[in-house]
């Protein structure tokens, strides 16, 4: 057995052509062909077997055999070195199965399909499900940390409400009986101006209504519909779940792309799309919650569809509903955090059907 390659002594950067031989007593013999000093002829170095280590094969890159005292033998004769490794004791056989796997085209195809399936399953089911479980089992102390978020919003995008204190008090008195059942959520109602016609729930239980929204609502029932929608977010811990989902997804994508250190746009765009679709699921959950609560509180659930549609119109600037049909609205569905209004109205109809409500 004779393998052609190079020898490097580990002390200088001088490279020698060399031949490696296995002698009859399983010792390693290395013949150096000293360049520029041909008259010396060949130099011979002997090695014990326990002083050498054969690196695992990696595609067709040069293969190294590390020798005692930082010396190194390099060869492109991968098959020769595989044969040498087989001849030597089995303990010297390296992780050869990896190379076999990597060079087997059907294994690669299979691995690719498994990858696609696993990524799909993890992102569609795994991440939301585990985030849900984590959110339910996390100590409450985590949520209490968000208590400053209203202060932060007050300092940035929100201003004091222009509603008269009496009006605010009336609205609070109106809502109070409807959220009594959710004592454990520490619900507190606040009014602010700015941010368009809107209502949102903060993780500590604060629900904020904007002045524009109060103006937009034509009846108390419409306000209650939105109140229940926001309580739905709180009861299902949506903010916390979204935060957990974002970090889970981040680690998962990192694990798959691994050392590719990609441009942010390549991993960022799918993450963004997924986040949007996750938050759409949350909206659907909150809608469902609101419909159920309204039904139990004996509020006409039609108000829900009406106020949601008016909110969407007010915030998109359209005076009249003019939903584009076909591909565009589908794309819009994927790109928006909130479900398309049409879907919302449909959900009201579905809910009615399921609960046997007849107009």
């Amino acid at each position: 057995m004779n393998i052609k390659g190079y020898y490097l002594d580990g002390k200088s950067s001088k490279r020698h052509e060399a031949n490696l031989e296995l002698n009859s007593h399983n010792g390693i013999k290395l013949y150096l062909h000293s360049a520029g000093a041909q008259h010396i002829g060949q130099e011979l170095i002997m090695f014990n077997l326990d002083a050498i280590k054969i690196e695992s094969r990696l595609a067709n890159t040069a293969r190294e055999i590390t020798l005692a005292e930082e010396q190194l033998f390099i060869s492109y004769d991968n098959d020769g070195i595989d044969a040498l490794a087989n001849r030597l004791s089995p303990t010297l056989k390296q992780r050869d199965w990896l190379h076999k796997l990597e060079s087997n085209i059907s294994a690669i195809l299979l691995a690719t399909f498994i990858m696609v399936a696993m990524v799909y399953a993890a992102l569609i089911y795994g991440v939301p499900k585990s985030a849900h479980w984590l959110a339910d089992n996390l100590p409450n102390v985590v949520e209490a940390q968000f208590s400053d978020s209203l202060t932060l919003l007050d300092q940035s995008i929100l201003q004091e409400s222009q509603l008269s204190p009496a009006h605010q008090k009336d609205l609070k008195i109106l809502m109070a009986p409807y959220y009594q059942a959710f004592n454990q959520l520490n619900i507190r109602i606040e009014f602010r101006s700015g941010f368009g016609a809107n209502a949102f729930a903060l993780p500590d239980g604060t629900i904020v209504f904007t002045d524009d929204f109060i103006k937009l609502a034509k009846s108390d029932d419409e306000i209650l519909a939105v109140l229940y929608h926001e309580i739905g977010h709180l009861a299902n811990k949506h903010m916390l779940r979204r935060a957990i989902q974002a970090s889970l997804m981040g680690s998962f994508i990192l694990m798959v792309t691994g050392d590719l250190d990609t441009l942010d746009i390549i991993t960022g765009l799918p993450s963004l799309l997924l986040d949007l679709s996750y938050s759409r699921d949350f909206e659907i959950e909150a809608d469902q919650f609101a419909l159920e609560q309204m039904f139990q509180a004996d509020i006409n659930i039609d108000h829900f569809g009406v106020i949601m549609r008016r909110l969407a119109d007010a915030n998109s600037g359209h005076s009249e509903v003019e939903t584009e049909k076909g591909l565009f609205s589908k794309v819009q569905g994927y790109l928006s955090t909130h479900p398309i209004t049409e879907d919302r109205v449909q959900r009201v109809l579905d809910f009615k059907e399921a609960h046997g409500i007849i107009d």
Partner: protein
Amino acid sequence: MSESTISERASHYDAPLSPKKLSFEFRGKGFEYFKLWVVNALLSVMTLGIYSAWATVRNNRYLYANLYLNDSHFRYLANPIQILKGRIIAVTLLVIYNIVLLTMPIIGLVLAVFLIFSIPYFVNKSMAFNRRMTSYKNIQFRFNASYKQAFMVTLIWPLLGILTLGLLYPKALKEIYAYTANNSAYGKSKFHFCASTWDYGKPALFAAAIVLSLGLSVWGISEIWPSLQFIAPIIFVLTYFTLIVFFIVTVNNIFYQNLQLQKHHFTSNYTMAGLFKVILINTLLTLITLGFYLPAAKIRLLKYLAENVTLNVHGSLENFSAATPEDVSALGEEMGQSFEFGV
């Protein structure tokens, strides 16, 4: 292969006056790398991330082994166990840090301050680890910098760059590259980096002037013809992208053109057109293949980056000698990856 040995021998005896130009060469192949990546990704996910340490080593071994200079390749030497240890410690610290930050904000704040002051230490360790794990012709690279040096380039200079609204940013860049290069060594031979702040200031001024005049003319056009306002965001995106390419090309060219090792000078000829072409092809193919082109894209980029660097060799490359052995841990590198800091 024998040809190069002969020419080396010849140069050794004839001692030519003109330098020999040796280009770096990258022999990696897209599909070959894709195969490694799929197996790595699959095993990493299936082992819940444990395998990622082995994946990192295999990945780097492939890339380093395909980088050639003068027909000799580089080598990546890290041991997966070493990396796994560092990774576990770093991730554990990151989780503890985040929990403390949420539950005990005061202690979290103290930890944050402590963490900021530990960044220079870990950056030094990380650089040392990466250099130490790289070898060429069986001689390892080295990195050795003081805490103060790292403190300046990780915290002070970037901060001054921001505080002066970018005015000191060229100086900060120069200091950062000087830190990475001047503290590096190939065996016992130190790298030498000799760029001036003005080398960075000139292109920065040039870019600022272009952006300013472009911004003014777009503003002027949209004032005169309001119907043309829609071009403003398009021009903004194009300018932003062009600036990034300009930055990468310029900074890398300055780096290599001012770098030397013993009497051997580096040069590079990255061009905006060249890099733009690589990025455009990579982005398009990655989008079309829904991400599966990504490994091949990395190979294409590395090929471009490697093959545009040249070493002007004065004399022989055979006289480098190895430094004394030293032990380094992977903790610094993994801390940098987990906590997302670095230079």
